[in-house]
């Protein structure tokens, strides 16, 4: 029984690795995820903006974390997923993997930008400044540069095959570097004794705040899947 299921799932994976067969599946998944994203975002925003209590120290300002934290999570996670698809593409030479990597990049860059933007909006009333050379802010900014470099390299090469493979290699090199960059920036920040403010929030977070944040994170997941699959469908239409 188990064996049959296993072999069945293996067959399915390779079956959907072809752009032609993946195209309709992507369409239906994207539709369901889009609906899910809207519902989850409505629920998350309701919990975050109405139900969750006002923070004792920060007041109403803290409510931006319901957008900010999930966006920051997605920005880092999507880069890893993108590098993973790039590696699969280089290893198995599957067209669809490269298309997935290409489709993930704009969504990742968008979330990185949202995380930076909402972070500075939160920083203005809380820290009194829009930008601090904090380790997390700086490494997030560099992550944005990595996304932009990936997209710029892909856009600069006319031959789609070379563009796919070149940007895939860049994504992998970038993924290897991301932890090094993060730790070097963290270390640099402690050396400079720059911002004495810490991003770590109060240890005890109200359960409703956590619920709101998790709902928003799920909403962002659903949105990302939907947006990426729609973009993949566009890429398949363009190329095939």
């Amino acid at each position, binding site marked *: 029984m188990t064996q049959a299921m296993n072999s069945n799932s293996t067959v399915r994976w390779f079956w959907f690795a072809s752009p032609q067969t993946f195209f309709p599946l992507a369409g239906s998944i994207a539709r369901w995820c889009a609906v899910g994203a809207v519902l989850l975002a409505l629920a998350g925003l309701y919990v975050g903006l109405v139900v969750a209590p006002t923070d004792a120290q920060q007041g109403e300002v803290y409510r931006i974390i319901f957008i900010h934290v999930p966006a920051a999570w997605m920005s880092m996670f999507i880069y890893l997923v993108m590098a993973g698809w790039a590696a699969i593409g280089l290893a198995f030479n599957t067209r669809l993997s490269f298309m997935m990597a290409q489709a993930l990049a704009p969504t990742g860059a968008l979330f990185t930008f949202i995380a930076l933007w909402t972070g500075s909006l939160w920083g203005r009333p809380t820290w009194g400044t829009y930008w601090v050379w904090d380790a997390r802010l700086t490494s997030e900014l560099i992550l944005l540069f990595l996304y932009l470099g990936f997209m710029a390299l892909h856009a*600069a090469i006319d031959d789609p095959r070379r563009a796919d493979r070149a940007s895939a*290699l*860049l994504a992998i*090199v970038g993924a290897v570097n991301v932890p090094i960059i993060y730790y070097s*920036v963290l270390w640099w920040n402690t050396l400079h004794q720059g911002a004495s403010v810490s991003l770590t929030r109060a240890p005890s977070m109200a359960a409703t705040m956590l619920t709101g944040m998790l709902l928003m994170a799920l909403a962002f997941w659903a949105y990302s899947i939907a947006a990426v699959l729609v973009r993949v469908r566009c890429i398949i239409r363009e190329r095939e």
Partner: protein
Amino acid sequence: MLALARTVVHRDLLLALRRRSDVGTALLFFVIVASLFPLGVGAEPNLLRAIAPGVIWVAALLSSMLSLGRLFAADYADGTLEQMLLAAAPLGVVVAAKTFAHWLVSGLPLVAIAPLIALQYDLAPGLYGVLALSLLLGTPVLSLIGAIGAALTLGLRGGGVLLALLVLPLYVPVLILGAGAVEMAGAGLDPEGELLLLGAALVVAAAFSPWAIAAALRISME
């Protein structure tokens, strides 16, 4: 394998010797960029002393990046690179040797001339050694990482600006460690930790980037 590497290094050095002005331009760029900062921020000696390590490192970073275009461009244009890819010799060794030769003509002069810039910035004499050592360990890493970008952008329109966009974010750790080492020494602390980390970065880059450069060249030359 060593003989092969020696041949490639010898050939590239000979070619660089024939086109001496190319080497000089990158070096001159380094000096000019470093000289522009006092004109921009003012000649207050204390300020200059404080920003010297960072300015010298950023100038070295930009100068090393600008000279990357030369790494494969000439060989690509006259077809030599294609022959290197077809040859039986392992491509990883060839590109490692080419990168080393490139560092000899673009990175090593920076190490040599950096104390002169440090003099302009009135850096404490005791820091010259740390500055030179950090550049000596750091600039090969820049060449190795940059060579991946140079191989990926080979023959593309607008390659220079694109190369900067790809390579500069990856340079960040080297910049932080290199400038950090000099600043630590300037603050009277032991810069050994940063220098060791730079050395580690060099070892890791030397081990892995030849593969990545070779893979990138194969992608670009398909």
